[in-house]
């Protein structure tokens, strides 16, 4: 439809563009300067060569990426990180959904208090929390001394520096994010829709499968993506609870940059981590959307 705009309409349209620009401009500039530029520089570094004294030599080579994928040590770290992140996401979904559902449907005046309780773990810093887990799970920790005192075991169990303790640690950090995301989505689902399903003969299982879960899908996806990304990139928890023996991708990147002083290799590991996260997130998103379209 071709229409000629009057002067006032044109002015109005221009004002709208200016207003929109003023609203999104600062955040855009901040993100561009603080994120995109460093990423671009990092990507360039990852293609550079490394000299005999670990100095960076300008080049265009895939050697760093080849080194990562040909050394079983590094591919093991990647596989381990993926395994931990997937486990954490699934456990957070299973633990988080019922909790989020109860919170979302709660009519009590203390609802806000309960939501604060869910967020409370985030008030404690990662290092402090990890110290707590160490006191609990260390070889002289509460769990081991208790088990030894009641005679269940003779020697302390190896709990610290294992996959289990790191997974538990990351779940504890990520669960609040999952619960809050799910809760806000479930709150948007009309309670009457659930009742309609019941009155039409659906028992709670069928109601959840056919009505609640499909309608909560955006929340399930958003919560899972958030949890997965946080777990893939976890740093403090694997360092403090995993120690030098249980290495994940985040600490590996840091190690290359700071301890090995190998910037090109560190940069390429960063990109492997970023790519793995994005590809898996996007794939899961597409698969789930397609499965539940309508």
């Amino acid at each position, binding site marked *: 439809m071709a229409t000629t705009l009057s002067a006032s309409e044109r002015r109005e349209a221009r004002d709208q563009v200016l207003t929109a620009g003023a609203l999104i401009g600062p955040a855009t500039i901040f993100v561009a300067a603080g994120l995109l530029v460093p990423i671009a520089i990092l990507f360039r570094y990852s293609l550079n060569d490394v000299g005999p004294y670990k100095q960076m030599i300008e080049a265009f080579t895939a050697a760093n990426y080849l080194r990562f994928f040909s050394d079983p040590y590094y591919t093991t770290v990647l596989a381990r990180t993926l395994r931990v992140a997937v486990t954490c996401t699934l456990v957070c979904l299973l633990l988080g959904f019922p909790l989020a559902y109860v919170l979302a449907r709660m009519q009590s005046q203390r609802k806000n208090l309960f939501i604060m309780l869910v967020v409370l773990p985030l008030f404690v810093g990662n290092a402090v929390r990890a110290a707590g887990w160490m006191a609990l799970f260390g070889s002289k920790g509460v769990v081991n001394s208790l088990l030894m005192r009641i005679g269940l075991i003779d020697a302390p169990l190896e709990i610290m520096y294992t996959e289990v303790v790191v997974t538990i640690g990351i779940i504890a950090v990520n669960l609040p994010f999952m619960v809050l995301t799910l809760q806000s989505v479930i709150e948007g689902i009309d309670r009457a*829709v659930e*009742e309609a399903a019941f*009155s039409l*003969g*659906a028992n709670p299982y069928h109601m959840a499968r056919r009505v609640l879960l499909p*309608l909560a899908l955006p929340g399930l996806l958003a919560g899972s993506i958030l949890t997965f990304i946080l777990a893939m990139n976890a740093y403090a928890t694997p360092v403090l609870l995993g120690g030098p023996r249980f290495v994940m991708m985040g600490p590996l990147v840091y190690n290359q940059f700071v301890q090995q002083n190998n910037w090109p290799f560190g940069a390429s590991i960063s990109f492997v981590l970023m790519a793995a996260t994005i590809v898996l997130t996007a794939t899961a998103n597409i698969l789930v959307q397609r499965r*539940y379209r309508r």
Partner: protein
Amino acid sequence: MARLEIASLSKLYGDFQAVREVSLDIADGEFLVLLGPSGCGKTTTLRMIAGFVTPSGGAIRIGDTDVTDLPPWKRNTGLVFQSYALFPHLTVAQNVAFGLEMRKVGRDDIAPRVAEALRMVRLGHLGERLPRQLSGGQQQRVALARALAIRPDVLLLDEPLSNLDAKLREEVRVEIRELQRQLGLTTVMVTHDQEEALTVADRLVVMSEGEVRQIGTQRDLDERPADRFVAGFVGRSTFLEGRAEGQGAFVTAGGLRLRCAVGSAAGPAVMALRPERVALGTAPLGLDNDLPGTVEFVSYLGAVLDLRVRLSDTDRVTVQMANRQDGMAPAVGARVHVGWSADAGRIFTQDAGAAA
């Protein structure tokens, strides 16, 4: 389709009595309307029938089955919500098919039954649409089709028309009533809108503060309201406070002596008058009660005029008169005569139904 019996049904929330000893017997194919102001317990009663609220006492029977302890999905009730409550992620046809799938109806039987239900509400052509692509009236008709498709024993309607605009409301309520008659469905509807209630109901139940105040037909409620609350809630009434003297005499607070039906006990009482039963003229009217007064307020309502007439410092009556071209239309301040027959004024003693 079945008879629905409710026996001494009660619901307590803490120490708040939401529903108190409600007993109803709804015949097969009857359309019963629960009418009352918000918070009167009508919705709680309906939700107990549907199974969403557990009664604190009493029993509910549908046909020969005691359903009091059955969960909602095991009672064969069709429920229509005020908010429609359609499944937003399913098409119209999938919405209607949902209840049939839950009942394990064979795949070959589902499609014809969905089509039949949608045809009943004249939406056969919209099966592939999503709910959000329909207007409010269409959505409510889909909700109705979804409830009808399962061939419920009892159809429950929870303020089904409140979210529709006035024109559409009239249309859909006639449609609901016609379908209900055609299918012979035992139906319970909850509403706070008395016009809606009066047009569709076979019988009405007036509730207030968790209790049933009166059960009856439209005529029963209009001509023989059980108490002051019903007289004020169903139709309109003006109330004259005063004292019943016995022997068909009533003295208002303002000192007017009035005649009323013989038989009411003496004591503090109130006289309820339907505005349409009060006559108005420029000269004495020769009725049982005949009083001079001053017009205080005139509401022009199109077909009728409402006049508030002051009879004494404390007594006022509302008079409804036809708005005719040739008729007189008294102005504010005009001196007039009002009158009504003795049996037009209903006397309620103060202890019975003091709430209004």
